[in-house]
């Protein structure tokens, strides 16, 4: 799951190939994913993992790194 999310983030949001996005890279506060684009990331997670993330849980903080996203997704798949 972790790599699937990381690869999706790299493919969809990395603009500068010199930037390195890792599991810990701050995605929202680091400017890789803006608050509007977060919606498409949420849709990706919901469709891919067949979950429903409530809007009040889809916060910039919860989406701020691949590791945090994995924690969020795990909360709805278990």
């Amino acid at each position: 799951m972790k790599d699937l999310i990381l690869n999706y983030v790299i493919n969809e949001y990395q603009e500068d190939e010199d930037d390195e996005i890792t599991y810990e890279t701050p995605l929202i506060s680091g400017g890789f994913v803006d608050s509007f684009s977060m919606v498409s990331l949420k849709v990706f997670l919901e469709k891919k993992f067949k979950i429903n993330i409530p809007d009040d849980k889809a916060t910039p903080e919860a989406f701020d790194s691949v590791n945090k996203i994995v924690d969020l997704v795990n909360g709805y798949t278990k």
Partner: protein
Amino acid sequence: MINIGSYDERIKNFSWEIAEKELEYKKGDIINIGWYCSDRICEMGKSEKIALYYEGFGDKEKSYTFNDIRLAGNTIGTFLRDQGIVAEDRVCLFMDRIPELYLSFLGVLKIGAIVQPLFSAFGDESLLVRLENAQTRAIITQRKHLSKIRKIIDRLPSLEYIIIVDHNPAKELKEKEIPFSLKNSTPVEEMEIYPTTAESPSVLHYTSGTTGQPKGVRHVHYSLISQYLTTKWVLDLQDDDIYWCTADPGWVTGTSYGIIGPWSLGITQCVLDSGFSAEAWYKFIEKYKITMWYSAPTAIRSLMKAGDEVIKRIDLKSLRHLASVGEPLNAEAVIWSEKVFGLPFLDTYWQTETGSMMITNYPGMKIKPGSMGKSFPGITGVVLDAKTYEPITEPGKVGLIAFKPGWPAMMTTYWNNEEKYKEKFVNGWYLAGDRAYLDTEGYFWFIGRDDDVINTGGHLVSPFEVESALLEHEAISESAVVAKPDEVNMEVVKAFITLKPGYEFDDDTELNIMNFIRKKLSPLAMPQEIEFMESLPKTRSGKIMRRILHAKEWGEEIGDTSTLEDD
């Protein structure tokens, strides 16, 4: 002591000459915004005062004095001039909020060229239509955005120079691409400032309308007069203030009040170039002891959502004045800010075309939470009857917001589109495109837009532009785009589509369409929701009835459907 003193007294005795005198400008003089924002401040003895504190992702921190920004403006301006850029050439700034964006703004203006700032999250299609329309000659950018420009460069014969401010020498450059490093350039101490006058064009911002392509709003150097005075009286900036405008200079707030206003007053300002996080924002205020904060309702509502606990852990006592712009500020947000910061956010109303604030709330004046406030002194703002275009005097009656033309920062035309420009004026009034009413005390109250343009997070998105881009997706047959209500952004983009034979609407298609628009236009334009329909509602003549879809989203009456195709 507040700068404006008494609003009522200012109204009685107002003349734009107040600003002209303070700026030592007389009719017919040279007036160059680049010079006013840097050289003049140095001549006033503030050359060592900090002009800019910058903080970017990865703990990047920099600071620049007014002398530093003067030299940087000279250096960039001279570099552009050496390339052959001349007065009135359009130079696009396509960068994140890095220092070079702010410094290039001054450099371009100093040589009399026109600054065309564009939001760096724009996709290649959004970039193309704006560069094509302006016949832009040079673009200053970062290497991270180069791929978007490379995609469209063949379709832009006017674009001769692609200037990269952070070039990596290990990477190969293509035709027209030129590296430029401010850090490695010899600072230019003296340069000949181009003698722009009041009517010389300065900034070209693009804005979206209901139909047609985005329009280039052309401003002139004389705009400085009202940008200076509104900054002084509404934002109340004083010499020892530390100011933070959260807007991106890709949009008009980021230039009128994120560069010109504060720097023409010699004020220290801060820039945070990172994504949104409530804690990071509050810590930024604490770290730089920000005193005046100009933000947007979407950001304020996001901070409200983040809760009050985080505020208790951070020292925000430096704040003394707050204001907001971009979309109407709801009463709850004003009440919340008074509760948590001890200060209300003062709503300000204006738009790309007006160039400076038009209707606002003022320090020292009674605030009515949820109201837009009153017209700025020198601005004649009214609500017009939608049929007669005569001012409505009856309180509470809704009409069109309009202004008597003639304030300094008013646009002078839409670039290459004089016809659309003329359409903005009726019966001697400039029509803002919004609806409001006046109360018994003369306060304006916002009702909504008078067209289909979507205001998402304070940015205007054209449904036409998104619909056109959707039709370029291989699976889509027809599209209609409307605003959908949203708790944080006020409105977001919603798309209704029909598919071509052989395609099915499934999870992958939806996500694929979203990402297609995000990359092609911008994240703002990306539909936050896509609804598949067997057919779209149309008139008998085949025109898609967007109105019906809009009413459905907002729970409104559908109204007259007599022309509906399948009625």
